[in-house]
């Protein structure tokens, strides 16, 4: 029951009260798809803008005062500290309100919580990022983290898919990645419209087709649960070891700090022991509920 | 009574007419029974019929997809009919094993009379119209009506109206509508402000466990109104205002389908007199519309039908 690096994280607790959010101000809103938007914000308190640090993979609890709180991964990169971003899928009460706020709105922010991708341990290795739909959000944080230190890593490939081309998120980032010759970017959609020139097919199927080399490589997967479950066996088939496959799991959360009890999978709490897990760890889960 | 039921239950299971039987068996506490689900004909000896089979098993029908047999008392059978009227279950999918109910003993009332808790009472038995309580070497004999549930004292129909088998053997004696309705009458005598204060104080104790809703056979909504977040009708906060609001709306929602079985009040761990609300609602429905919940499986659902001749006062 040890939370990694608690002292580091305790610095960002507001007035010693872990449930008291910091106030953040919305700087920019990017409408990714009809139901997904990215909110860029900075802290109202100047000192936090200077000092706040997080690591790729961690999440935060964003709140609309008077409506509620919800969990989002921080999808901006830790290497870029002028602003922070969260990607919001409109699926319920809080996210609906988050889709209605405008620039200048004040929201609540609690975080960063959870564990993170072991970026330093990935140095010198080849990395393949596999994302589906809004699952690109936590990956994006790691991708830019890696890209901002490009020479520390080996070959980089990004395989990203969505239901259709209008469901692809972070199109501006995808453009930059596609233009960058030092990485390989492959896009796929389940259903192509007439203008689509990329691949067609579900991500696990395309992955099998591409069969990237598992030699000195790490895979980072994120997407809808059904996509993750179907991607794991493919990765194993093409030679990836379970310890080298990373993912982030999603569960309903409230407190975000391992006290309210609801995000457990067996004896582990996703908010406290995750959300980043290796496939090897997942295989050892004593519950079938992920 | 038990033998007759067990023979029929065995028959039904062996023939394959039903996949399972929902009945009662001995509980793990004194003077308690507990619901039992049997699939194997050899288990029928576990079924019991006695004066402690208080649960309304119709609740479980909402979940089953296969043909089942269900043991019901008078009030429970009407809940089954309510479910049939609401098209939640198919009459062909359920074999109703009716018990002509002799009235259920309220162990809480026995505890009051004996002056000690249930686990310290040695025996409760009934002979004719007399309830015999043995505790700590002493014996107390009281009129049966003193130990029956209020809802049983006030019972409108102890014998199921809809059944495939009727098990009888004991008549329902000890009915006493005055006693059964005493709590409700007392509330009616109060001024509205007094009544409001009464309910406010009662609902301060509510912890929103939702046992009242979960045990009620006609509360079968997939998503209860209280769980709606858009719009948020009431808060999940267990403050008296929201607690009382929840119960008032629930009472109105079950109007015309509630058979006043009293299970909600029995389930409440804080002893809130819920039957005073739903029971009164049940009565109002009868007085205003001459409609008794669950008495005719072919009648349309109460709230889903309108006749021109209905009481027009409420529409003014």
């Amino acid at each position, binding site marked *: *029951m040890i939370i990694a690096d608690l002292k580091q994280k305790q610095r960002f607790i507001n007035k010693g009260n872990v449930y008291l959010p910091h106030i953040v101000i919305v700087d920019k809103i990017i409408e990714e798809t009809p139901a997904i938007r990215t909110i860029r914000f900075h802290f109202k308190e100047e000192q936090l803008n200077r000092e706040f640090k997080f690591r790729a993979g961690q999440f935060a609890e964003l709140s609309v005062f008077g409506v509620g709180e919800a969990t989002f991964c921080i999808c901006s990169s830790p290497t870029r500290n002028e602003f922070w971003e969260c990607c919001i899928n409109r699926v319920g009460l809080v996210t609906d309100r988050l889709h209605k706020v405008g620039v200048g709105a004040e929201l609540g922010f609690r975080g960063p919580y959870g564990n993170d991708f072991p970026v330093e341990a990935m140095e010198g290795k080849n990395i393949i990022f596999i994302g589906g739909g809004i699952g690109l959000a936590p990956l994006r944080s790691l991708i830019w983290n890696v890209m901002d230190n490009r020479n520390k890593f080996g070959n980089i490939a990004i395989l990203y898919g969505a239901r259709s081309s209008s469901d692809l998120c972070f199109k501006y980032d995808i453009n930059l990645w596609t233009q960058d010759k030092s990485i390989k970017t492959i896009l796929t959609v389940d259903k192509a419209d007439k203008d689509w020139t990329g691949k067609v097919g579900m991500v696990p199927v395309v992955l099998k087709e591409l069969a990237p080399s598992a030699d000195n490589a790490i895979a980072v997967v994120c997407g809808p649960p059904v996509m993750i479950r179907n991607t794991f066996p493919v990765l194993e088939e093409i030679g990836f070891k379970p310890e080298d496959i990373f993912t982030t799991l999603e569960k309903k959360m*409230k407190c975000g700090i391992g006290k309210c009890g609801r995000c457990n999978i067996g004896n582990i709490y996703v908010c406290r022991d995750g959300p980043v897990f290796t496939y090897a760890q997942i295989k050892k889960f*004593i519950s079938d509920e992920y | 009574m038990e033998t007759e039921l067990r023979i029929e239950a065995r028959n039904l299971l062996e023939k394959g007419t039903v996949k399972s039987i929902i009945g009662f068996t001995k509980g793990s506490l004194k003077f308690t029974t507990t619901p039992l689900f049997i699939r194997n004909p050899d288990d029928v000896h576990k079924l019991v019929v006695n004066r402690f089979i208080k649960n309304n098993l119709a609740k479980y029908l909402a979940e089953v997809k296969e043909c089942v047999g269900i043991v019901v008392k008078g009030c429970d059978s009407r809940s089954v009919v309510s479910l049939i009227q609401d098209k939640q279950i198919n009459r062909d999918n359920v074999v109703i094993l009716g018990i002509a109910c002799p009235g259920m003993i309220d162990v809480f009332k026995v505890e009051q009379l004996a002056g000690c808790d249930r686990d310290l009472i040695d025996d409760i038995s009934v002979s004719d119209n007399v309830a015999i309580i043995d505790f700590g070497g002493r014996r107390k004999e009281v009129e049966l009506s003193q130990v029956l549930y209020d809802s049983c004292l006030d019972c409108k129909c102890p014998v199921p109206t809809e059944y495939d088998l009727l098990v009888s053997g004991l008549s329902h004696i000890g009915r006493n509508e005055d006693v059964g309705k005493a709590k409700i009458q007392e509330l009616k005598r109060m001024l509205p402000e007094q009544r409001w204060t009464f309910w406010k104080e009662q609902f301060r104790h509510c912890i929103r466990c939702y046992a009242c809703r979960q045990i009620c056979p006609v509360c079968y909504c997939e998503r209860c109104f209280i769980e709606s977040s858009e719009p948020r009708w009431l808060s999940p906060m267990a403050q008296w205002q929201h607690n009382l609001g929840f119960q008032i709306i629930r009472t109105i929602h079950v109007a015309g389908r509630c058979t006043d079985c009293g299970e909600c009040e029995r389930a409440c761990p804080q002893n809130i007199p819920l039957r005073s609300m739903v029971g009164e609602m049940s009565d109002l429905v009868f007085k205003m519309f001459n409609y008794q919940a669950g008495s005719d499986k072919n009648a349309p659902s109460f709230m889903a039908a309108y006749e021109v001749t209905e009481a027009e006062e409420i529409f003014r």
Partner: protein
Amino acid sequence: MAFKKTAKNNITKLMTAWSHDFKIMVPTRKNSVIEFGDWDGKDVDFWVWYRNTVVPPKVFLLPVWEEMIRFSKNNHGWGLEVPGSEQKVLIFGVRPCDARGMAIINDVFKDGYPDYYYDIKRRRTVTVGLNCVQPYDSCFCTSMGIDPAMSKDVDVMLIDAGDDFIMEALTDAGAKLLHGEFIRSASAQEVQMARSMASSVTGKIHRKLNTHGLSEKLLDRFSDTELWEEIAAKCLSCGICTFLCPTCFCFEIYDESFKKQGSRYRGWDSCSFKLYTQMPMENPREEKWKRIRQRVCHKFEFHPINTGNFACTGCGRCIRLCPVNWDITQVIAQITGTMDSSLTEPSKNKV
């Protein structure tokens, strides 16, 4: 710490002295429900009739609902305020099972991030324990490693010694209470006699729960759908067992607001409810049997893996107050294959 004693006749006076610093909560009977209520200042003798409350004393550390943050919007944006700290509370008459429950909850809330609201309440709460003399037939604390006659999880432990209470301070906060004219020293003999008398209570607990190898057996049968469906069949998915359990601590956080003002609250939640794990696209515990499995396995497998303790103190409230008599001791007996070991003497149940 040295043992003290006080005459039962002096308890009211002692509580009066304590009430200068503390709000005192004692067992009361309201609506025929036993619960910890405000002491009204009158003479007390609840030990004569008090067995145990319906709502456990965890409610003083983790209330049914509590306000966490108040917010209001003005020209400068949102202002956040944390409601002020609370009065000191003394809970008189905590049973060993409930005291252990509070200790188990303490493990959870003290681990990792500090829980601001829990910490305030824990600091301001003092517990005076009381040995059990008349357990219910639903009690099985002895199976969970708890001694109904003695607790180390309270600040002061009282043992009923006829005309007196033997008192033992177990913490500094407890020691502070045991001063004044009504407190005398107790001799080793008196303590020995009282303890000896009190220990006879273990013979009154007949219900058992077999914990031997339980975690492993649960792990073994985790995917046995048929078993869990059978176990869950009669459960109603209400919240009674979880809310009234001394060790259950699950909560939810929700906002209430009206125009530009509002509050954020924390309140009890239950893993038995369907919506507990409801996500927008899926619910990992949609089916009732999965929720029951979660509850049983959390208490007897997951929590022990994390902390070494079962999340159950054998207080029996879940059995006593379940509307359909779902019985955890029978369920565990079924899972471990020791079916007949949990039942008490058969009830006669004559018509």
